[in-house]
């Protein structure tokens, strides 16, 4: 990758933990590329990141810069951790800037339980969750949808679930966009996408998707005031975190429109450096069709996390013999990290409508923003950064600075540093399961090889990623969470 190696050299510091590749680095770049990373994290980034973020800078209508968060790594089309905004009136929308797993995201649920109460029943709890939330290839969900009901899910998202009894009304208040993105249009969803996703509502998936039981360790609360607002009471408290998306339904919508855009780009005079960046003008017929289908998939992902939340509450209630409300199982927040959203931001002093693509990147709106829940508005939007199943995760909050620096965006995870094959060579799944068990982390997994692929050493140091976000001011760290139990696909 000689080009990328050259670009790496040309990434020059323009601020603390901010690196810029100028538009002169590659023919066709309309704007610079900006990477947020410490020197150590930058050195860990693979060559693909530099190649891909500069490819994004070549897309029509891009505004200000193509961005990459500190957890960035080589993806397809955009780098994972990529953020780019395009003018709604003169820019494009690209499935490769969103990902096939549309609205893959994170949800964190607090509990009123402590580790002392959970630890004696942890195996029973993990076994019950593993049974209640199907995972892995070929899994089938517990919600039986008709065509009519599925179309309602597409339009109403998590709200449909709550109306069916799969959740509490206040869950919606604590979900990005109240669990329902506007613009969803089932008319632009293929029969194949529906057939593929019909049986999967309530399933976790595989790869890096998980459902985790976590605890706050002493010294893990970094901002006591914000932690209190989020419902974090202190060391020993138990949390539930889940990471999953729109399943086969969203994957098929991504496939359908990538294929379509690959065909029609010449009609709009668009050429891209990577076919995976296939795109269409946002206001074109095809761009608007994808927008309608993409939001339908996003809403199905909110619904998926909502019905899984319902299952989690059922399981806790059964295992601990108390009502879920009595156990304090309330949703802290639910965030997307694979979406494009229509947002208004300041550009050169003007208020401009932008299509903000976040692929493996989280929205991080600051205090006072209107889409931040009323009870969090003084601290900013909660941000959930999922780490590896061995090392832990983190809760942060959005900042005013992120609004001006990154269109209100931040990282989404730790970011891989190692291929899946290399991770499997270094450790057997069975061995890792035993080692984690000995360290007090109980894991149930549909695929043993999948466990090895997700070993902690395959990821960057989460603390290093979070420290960069905090230093640059893209989000503010609130609390770190440590896993004690994990369900994997």
């Amino acid at each position, binding site marked *: 990758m000689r080009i990328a190696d050259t670009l790496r050299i040309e990434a020059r510091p323009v601020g603390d933990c901010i690196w810029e590749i100028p538009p002169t680095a590659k023919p066709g770049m309309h704007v610079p590329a900006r990477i947020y990373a410490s020197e150590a994290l930058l050195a860990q980034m693979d060559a693909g990141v530099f190649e891909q973020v500069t490819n994004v800078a070549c897309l029509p209508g891009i505004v200000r810069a193509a961005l990459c968060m500190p957890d960035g790594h080589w993806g397809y089309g955009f780098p994972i951790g990529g953020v780019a905004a395009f003018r709604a009136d003169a820019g494009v929308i690209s499935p490769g800037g969103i990902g096939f797993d549309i609205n893959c995201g994170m949800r964190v649920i607090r509990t009123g339980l402590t580790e002392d109460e959970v630890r004696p029943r942890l195996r029973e709890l993990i076994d019950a969750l593993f049974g209640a939330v199907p995972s892995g290839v070929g899994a089938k969900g517990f919600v039986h949808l008709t065509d009519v009901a599925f179309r309602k899910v597409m339009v109403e998202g998590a709200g449909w679930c709550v109306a069916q009894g799969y959740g509490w009304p206040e869950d919606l208040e604590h979900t990005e966009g109240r669990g329902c993105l506007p613009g969803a249009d089932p008319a632009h969803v293929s029969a194949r996408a529906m057939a593929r996703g019909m049986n999967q509502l309530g399933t976790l998936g595989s790869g890096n998707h998980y459902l985790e039981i976590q605890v706050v360790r002493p010294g893990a609360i970094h901002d006591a005031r914000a932690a209190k607002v989020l419902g974090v009471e202190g060391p020993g408290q138990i949390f539930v975190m889940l990471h999953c998306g729109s399943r086969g339904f969203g994957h098929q919508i991504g496939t359908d429109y990538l294929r379509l855009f690959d065909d029609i780009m010449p009609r709009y005079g668009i050429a891209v450096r990577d076919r995976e960046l296939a795109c269409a003008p946002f206001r074109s017929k095809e761009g608007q069709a994808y927008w309608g289908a993409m939001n339908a998939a996003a809403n199905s992902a909110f619904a998926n996390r909502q019905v899984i939340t319902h299952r989690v509450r059922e399981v806790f209630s059964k295992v601990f013999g108390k009502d879920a409300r009595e156990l304090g199982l309330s949703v802290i927040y639910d965030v997307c990290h694979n979406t494009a959203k229509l947002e208004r931001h300041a550009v050169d002093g003007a208020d401009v409508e932008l299509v903000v693509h976040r692929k493996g990147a989280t929205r991080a709106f600051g205090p006072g923003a209107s889409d931040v829940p009323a009870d969090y508005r003084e601290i900013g939007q909660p941000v959930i950064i999922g780490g590896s199943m061995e090392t832990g995760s983190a809760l942060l909050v959005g900042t005013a600075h992120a609004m001006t620096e990154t269109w209100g965006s931040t990282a989404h995870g730790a970011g891989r540093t190692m291929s899946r094959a290399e991770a499997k060579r270094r450790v057997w799944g069975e061995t890792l399961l035993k080692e984690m068990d000995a360290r007090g982390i109980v894991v149930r997994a*549909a695929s043993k090889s999948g466990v090895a692929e997700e070993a902690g050493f395959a990821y960057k140091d989460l603390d290093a990623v979070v420290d960069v976000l905090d230093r640059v001011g893209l989000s503010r760290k609130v609390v770190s969470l440590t896993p004690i139990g994990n369900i994997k696909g």
Partner: protein
Amino acid sequence: MGAYRFLEEVALADCAMEIEGRDLDDLFETAAQALARLMVDPATVALTVERTVTLEAARLDLLLYDWLSELIFLKDRDREVFPQSRVRVTGEGPVRLTAELRGGPIDPDRTALGADPKAVTFHQFALEPVDGGWRARVVIDI
């Protein structure tokens, strides 16, 4: 019979495959075999289901894209995987594929699961003639 290998130096979180076949039919059959191996241990799938698939595309590379996408689709819709196939590719723009698939259900009690592919990407996607046959590179999002 063709050959495949998984490439590690491409797209860290996903799965890149390089596939070679002595002709197009062989390459498409081998690609299907590689995809099945990614999803499951084929030895743990009872070969009880047979299907016929027909596809048409404007170009050969798009036919390969649609072929692998179809197998991923069947994995989700019917929860079935197909380690074996007999493929015939014909025509020159449009190109057509007829395939006889042999596989079986993903049985949680019997099947050793691997990854759950989401989609075929166009990242570094390539299908080209080489000495002695054809070669393809495909990155699967998992």
